[in-house]
């Protein structure tokens, strides 16, 4: 992916640029809002990571101008302002996702990948498949290797989300936000319990596990390569 990072904190920026490059992405970095806007308007980026508070032009204005100019590059806001209201304001200004500081790098990476994929036009799907696991979105049924799997409604949503992002790391926060629409992390690791239950249903009795735990990050659904 070609990524643009607009972040004024030099230490954080250096760390993010390094991390993103090591993950195999091309990264340009701007230290303030005006430079960031110039770069964003000039280059064809797959996604931009924009800090909310920037010198010379704040993040919201950068994205506003970008959208006014007809540029639809997906934007992920970074901010120390992490409450729901701030998120809403960021998303209204044209941001596509919002990540509160401090955050885990894996969380940022996972969200960027989802963001870019979401923006690449995909045909309306009625069936999702990963390996021999199939999900019929019309009849709301799941089968693996032809065997019917019984899923609770929420388990179905969870599996659907995992399958839509198959091959990518999905964090617990992303699952809470997208499957449960909760913008907070419960004290107990409820997601892990839900995942182990899902795993018991789709992976138990099968030789190849599809649902993988990614240490320190979250989960990933993928067929054995």
């Amino acid at each position, binding site marked *: 992916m070609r990524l643009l990072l607009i972040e004024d904190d030099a230490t954080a920026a250096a760390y993010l640029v390094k991390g993103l490059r090591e993950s195999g992405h091309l990264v340009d970095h701007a230290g303030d809002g005006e430079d960031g806007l110039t770069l964003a308007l000039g280059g064809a980026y797959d996604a931009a990571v924009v800090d909310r508070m920037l010198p010379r032009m704040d993040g919201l204005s950068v994205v506003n101008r970008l959208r006014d100019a007809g540029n639809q590059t997906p934007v992920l806001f970074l901010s120390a302002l992490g409450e729901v209201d701030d998120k809403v304001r960021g998303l209204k200004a044209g941001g596509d996702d919002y990540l509160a500081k401090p955050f885990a790098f894996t969380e940022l990476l996972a969200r960027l990948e989802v963001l870019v994929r979401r923006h690449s036009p995909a045909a309306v799907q009625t069936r999702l498949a990963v390996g021999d696991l199939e999900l019929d979105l019309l009849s709301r049924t799941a089968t693996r290797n032809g065997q019917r799997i019984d899923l609770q409604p929420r388990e179905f949503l969870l599996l659907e989300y995992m399958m839509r992002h198959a091959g990518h790391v999905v964090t617990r926060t992303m699952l809470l936000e997208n499957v449960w629409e909760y913008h907070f992390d*419960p004290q107990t690791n409820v997601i892990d319990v839900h995942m182990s239950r899902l795993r018991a249903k789709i992976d138990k009795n099968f030789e190849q596990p599809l649902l993988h735990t990614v240490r320190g990050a979250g989960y990933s659904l993928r067929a054995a390569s």
Partner: protein
Amino acid sequence: MRLLDLFRTATFRLALAYVLLFAASVIFLLGFIYWRTAGFMTRQVDETIAAEVQGLSEQYRRRGLLGLRQVVIERAAASSGSSLILLTAPDGRSLGGNLARWPANAIVDEGGWIGFTFTRGGEQGLARGRAIPLQGGLYRLLVARDISDLALIEGTLRNTLLYALGLTALFGVIGGGLIARTVLGRLNQINQTSEEIMQGDLSRRIPIMGSGDELDELAKNLNAMLGQIEGLMTGMREVADNIAHDLRTPLNRLRNRLEGAMLARDTPDDTKLALENAIEEADGLIATFNSLLLIAEAESGAHRNTMEEVDLRSIARDVVDLYEPVAEERGIALTLSAPEAVRVRGNPSLVARAAANLVDNALKYTPTGGKVGVQIDPGYLRNDGPSIIVRDSGPGIPAPDRARVLDRFVRLERSRNTPGSGLGLSLVAAVARMHGAALELADNQPGLAARLVFPKALPIPQAAQ
């Protein structure tokens, strides 16, 4: 207090204005009395003279100059002394009357009245009267009355009234000054106390006189406000102390882990594991900070404009749905009893979070084989507001500790070994306060019954939809 300061005070100005208004009323009142008494006497004199003039004119018309002279001489002889009369010939000679000659110092006013002084029996007198020209002004008739006594009475009256005015003004000034001093003294007290408080002694209070007047009321209100501020300040200080203390422990653990990873001659895998543990520790710290921030935000009312209509039943369903696998894993029966939709005004995210915290807590402290029940109560059966009730069969919270556990970082001794930040119930309490709701903790016999009671039947604005 310096004189200049006295002039600057509002109370003194008020007293001064009062004195001035008072003096003006007294001047008007006394002026009226003067006009009614002295004026009345003068008018009586004037009427007597006018009647006399009319009578003499009648005589003159009927009996001519000689006849008039006869009457004048008769009247002068019969005069008691206060009535003055004089008829003069063209050469100024007296033809009759009780005045020696025509007065030289007569002053004629606009109404044709003349005032003059005269000498009789060696005494000088003051007179007022009218002059009537006869035969084309050759002869002149003077009809007047001695008003010396009247002038004396008038003078005395005037002096008395002026003294009265002076005394009234003096009393007004003294009274106003006293009132100003008393009120100022009490305001001064309030000011002094405020200054002492500003210098850092928050325990000072304004003395109350017990008179129950507005100043006492002010002092009471100020004292109540000071009490509230002091309470908040103490709370803040405790919170700051708690934060400093309770964050030091995890920070220390984090530091130890990192240090251990650096010093130990472990395999790269072990180092990685140590670092992962350190990150976990840091994540815990971040979560604690987020909770603290959220509590602070809820308490400052930052979310007050994000209120919307929320259905407690659907919130409870989602929360139970989220925790159901956790309960199952721990062998706890998690049930939901919510027969109908119950709407309240609230911030959906925060209400959900509060409900999740209550369920989370209940599951955490309930032993395997126990029960956790979530109930949505519309409230109208017990004539109360709608509520979310979470009951568990755990150890419960002893009655004396129930208020304390709502404070930040308070964890009861026996829960030291369960994971948690001690902020869960504080957050629920903060969310409750923000919604005007109450968090009640009661004995579930056994276990804890936590009840989040929203305000009763808030009118839901239909126009907004």
